[in-house]
């Protein structure tokens, strides 16, 4: 593997090219699309105010009289078939039944948002309320009297149909299994068996840009859709929901005001209203709507049983995971399957996993940074600490004894590569001064330290395509289909392309965000852009270079294989003084060329140089009974986080004083961008640990759908300066571009259990439900009365 010093751009912290536009207010987001455009209609949605009910009637007559209202649509006006990401269980607008507070009942388009809002208030809907179901553990019972989707057995399950087998109840839609070794045998041989139940509340992305979309109906019957999300990832579900061929839906995006796994939401309503009215229609969700229609992170209940030897080595682990997916399945089936990948970090010879997704009358859930791994690690990384404590062992040592090394086989049967997990553990332990006591605190304050190991995989089974255009001045243009959502993929891709083409960073132009222009990409999900798009880009650059060298070889009198390119010049590798400017290739005159084509814009032969390539991450088969497969992911980012906290035992308030992250990123293409992912992940992880969680009324209404009552961390709650540390560990991945792999999600995953372990270290109390709010901390202190005095 080459060293960083061999590269001109790789391993350097290039300044983000989008930063200038973002600090000057020039950067455009989808929110800006169509502002002030004459004729634009504004859409608003009537969401159900009841959690479970039959719709008896909808009267829109009075609402239609509101001046400026163009159309009011209900279920009968929307496509009659159900669609969904993994199970086709959802109509665009409800037919007959609503299944959560926030289910869409009617859509209004009007000349102003004021008129649309006024009309919403005048739509009369009569509901017959049905008994509602909010508890996943109740929903999974075979005798549960409430059934949300009686027709579930007849729904189309487009992908992963084996997840619909062996369902324990009529509300269960997903069951994923892993069987490895024999857990009973493992438990029999164990010196200690530990069983615990852990849970987490719903949280949501809280991306600062609210969900928004604009749909333009085109004269040929197609639609151009602007989204604050991803182009291709949005296109597929919308096309399925409307039975539109992909060629009839062009999806465009600009800069994206935060992603973190969010899905397209108002897009389907914008398309529906635009198709019905024939007018461009814009929808912008209020912050409250972002909460209840935002496909938030799944609440999971994890039952965890471990059998260990007296030296702390894991012999068997059994996990039963029940996931409350709300009224519709959305991404949940895949999340439930993929949550099991969290277990990759330890050698566990006997492993049994049953994860279930159940419908309830809470809002549906979806992908969020961590995609199930964070929720499971919340349980397992506390359990490791509990095991160490029970055995009187040092927990860092217990973790290291079980942590995978290069070449080990994990619980899914995959051989793991590019593993820097132990090094990450050691780095954070050293920084937090593991084993040394905290500074003493006074009065009701107690301090403690904790750490946790974590990981996040990058999925197999997806593809990225890239087109590289060589301009007549020798610079290049990269056209890619992934998403610049702030993570800096455009910066990283320009570095990769510049390195491969021997160009400076500024000579690479990036074009993205339009299915009408850029090639297919699965998108910025599963921490996949650096590896997938980076690989496709390298291949596309090589394809473009091959074409260049073929054209240049005759003029330079050598074979194409003897040529290379640097600084916009093609040269003979063994005699670099013999060279040809790329622009000279464009100067030759085609005998038939006239006028404007003649000067340096078009090649005499072949016209343009367009390199093109696709990178596929092909998976192996997965055994549906055992969950075993040789290649189910493409890479893992492992890492560790450590926290020092201070708890006020009178108020229950926990403050994170110091925080350290270390992650194995393969190769840091841009070290600063890796660092800021770790800092951002730490911030989000601290939020999930201490502050964030949906609070519901007994009727299923979200009581805190705003930033006043649902608190994400502010600058005051996240350590900064010398108290926040991010450490890059490089364990190059053989299949990554320059050894790089994805690392965007991982830095959120160990944060919450690291903080919980620090709280235990401080006051000897174990909190098993997320978030660890002051109320929960105080209640735990009161009920335990085991406060350690220091």
């Amino acid at each position, binding site marked *: 593997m080459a060293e960083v010093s061999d590269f001109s751009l790789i391993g350097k912290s290039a300044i983000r090219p989008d*930063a200038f536009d973002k600090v000057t207010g020039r950067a455009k987001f989808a929110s800006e699309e169509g*502002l002030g455009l004459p004729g634009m209609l504004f859409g608003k949605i009537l969401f159900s105010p009841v959690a479970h009910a039959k719709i008896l009637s909808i009267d829109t007559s009075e609402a239609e009289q509101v001046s400026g209202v163009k159309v009011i649509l209900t279920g009968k006006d929307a496509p009659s078939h159900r669609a969904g990401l993994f199970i086709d269980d959802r109509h665009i607008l409800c037919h007959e039944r609503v299944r959560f507070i926030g289910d869409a009942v009617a859509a209004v388009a009007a000349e102003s948002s004021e008129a649309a809002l006024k009309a919403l208030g005048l739509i009369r809907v009569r509901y017959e309320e049905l008994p509602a179901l909010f508890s996943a553990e109740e929903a999974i019972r075979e005798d549960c009297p409430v059934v949300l989707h009686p027709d579930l057995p007849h729904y189309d399950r487009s992908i992963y149909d084996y997840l619909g087998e062996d369902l324990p109840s009529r509300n269960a839609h997903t069951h994923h299994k892993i069987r490895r070794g024999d857990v009973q045998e493992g438990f029999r041989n164990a010196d200690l068996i530990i069983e615990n139940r852990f849970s987490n509340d719903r949280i949501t992305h809280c*991306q600062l840009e609210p969900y928004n979309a604009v749909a333009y109906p085109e004269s040929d019957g197609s639609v151009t859709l602007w989204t604050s999300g991803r182009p291709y990832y949005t296109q597929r579900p919308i096309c399925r929901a409307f039975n539109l061929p992909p060629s009839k839906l062009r999806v465009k995006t600009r800069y994206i005001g935060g992603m973190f796994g969010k899905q397209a939401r108002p897009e389907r309503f914008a398309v529906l209203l635009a198709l019905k009215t024939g007018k461009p229609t814009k929808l912008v969700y209020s912050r409250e709507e972002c909460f209840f229609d935002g496909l938030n992170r799944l609440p999971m209940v994890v039952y965890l049983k471990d059998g260990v030897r007296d030296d702390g080595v894991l012999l068997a682990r059994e996990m039963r995971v029940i996931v409350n997916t709300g009224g519709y399945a959305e991404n949940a089936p895949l999340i439930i399957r993929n949550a099991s990948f969290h277990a990759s970090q330890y050698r566990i010879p006997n492993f049994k996993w049953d994860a279930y997704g159940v419908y309830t009358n809470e809002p549906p859930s979806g992908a969020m940074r961590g995609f199930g791994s964070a929720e499971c690690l919340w349980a397992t990384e506390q359990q490791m600490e509990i095991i160490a404590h029970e055995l009187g062992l040092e927990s860092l040592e217990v973790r290291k004894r079980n942590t995978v090394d290069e070449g080990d086989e994990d619980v899914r049967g995959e051989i793991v590569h590019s593993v820097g997990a132990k090094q990450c553990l050691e780095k954070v332990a050293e920084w937090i001064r593991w084993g040394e006591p905290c500074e003493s605190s006074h009065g009701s304050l107690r301090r403690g330290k904790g750490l946790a190991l974590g990981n996040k995989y990058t999925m197999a089974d997806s593809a990225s395509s890239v087109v590289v255009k060589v301009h007549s001045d020798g610079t290049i243009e990269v056209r890619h289909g992934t998403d610049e959502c702030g993570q800096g993929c455009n910066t990283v891709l320009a570095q990769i392309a510049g390195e491969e083409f021997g160009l400076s960073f500024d000579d690479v132009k990036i074009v993205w965000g339009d299915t009408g222009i850029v090639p297919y990409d699965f998108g910025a999900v599963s921490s996949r852009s650096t590896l997938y798009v980076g690989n496709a880009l390298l291949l596309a650059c090589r394809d473009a270079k091959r074409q260049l060298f073929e054209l240049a070889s005759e003029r330079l009198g050598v074979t194409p294989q003897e040529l290379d390119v640097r600084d916009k010049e093609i040269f003979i590798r063994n005699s670099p003084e013999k060279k040809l400017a790329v622009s000279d290739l464009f100067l030759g005159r085609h005998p038939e060329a006239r006028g404007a084509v003649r000067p340096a814009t078009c090649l005499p032969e072949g016209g343009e140089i367009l390199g093109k390539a696709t990178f596929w991450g092909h998976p192996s088969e997965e055994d549906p009974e055992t969950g075993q497969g040789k290649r189910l992911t493409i890479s893992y980012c492992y890492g560790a986080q450590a926290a020092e906290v201070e708890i006020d035992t009178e108020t229950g308030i926990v403050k994170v004083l110091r925080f350290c992250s270390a992650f194995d990123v393969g190769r840091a293409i841009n*070290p600063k961008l890796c660092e800021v992912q770790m800092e951002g992940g730490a911030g989000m992880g601290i939020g999930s640990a201490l502050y964030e969680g949906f609070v519901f009324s007994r009727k299923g209404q979200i009581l805190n759908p705003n930033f006043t009552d649902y608190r994400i961390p502010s600058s005051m709650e996240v350590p900064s300066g*010398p108290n926040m540390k991010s450490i890059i560990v490089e364990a190059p991945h053989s299949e990554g571009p320059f050894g790089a792999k994805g690392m965007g999600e991982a830095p959120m995953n160990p944060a919450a259990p690291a903080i919980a372990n620090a709280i235990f270290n401080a006051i000897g109390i174990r909190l098993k439900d997320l978030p660890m709010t002051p109320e929960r901390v105080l209640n735990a202190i009161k009920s335990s009365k085991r406060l350690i005095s220091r």
Partner: protein
Amino acid sequence: MRQQIQLHVNGVTEDLLIEPWWTLAQVLREKLGLTGTKISCEMGDCGACTVLIDGKAVRSCLFLAMKARGKKIVTIEGLMGRRGVLDPLQKSFIENFAVQCGYCTPGMIMTAKALLTENPNPTEEEVKEALQGNLCRCTGYTKIIEAVLAAAHKKPTEGGGSE
């Protein structure tokens, strides 16, 4: 009933016909095309819409445009000097990697501008306090705080670096 008003925005006097209930954020974005001012929570919680009114940081989503008459309004677009010279804060945000998705960035910079105008030499704690009403979901704030301190000609704080 729409009313005729004048607003002084980024050194330019603008004549506008607006509804009396329109917020300043709405008028800046929809009537003046100054879309650098972002709308995110519309409740004053997040600070994405922060602009300067007579030098003070104000949440334009809670401020009626009518109330801004006769006042000097500066938005993110007005921060750059006439010859395209970036404000030290803008430059510092770029160089310190304080920008990710960029949606909170304009409000963050305007709040920091008000802070540095009032207190040109803030401590790290004072910067954190000043920024606590501006939410960011991407950065974890560390680089933003460093950027503000660096713009105030302070040495960047230790730590946060990679190894």
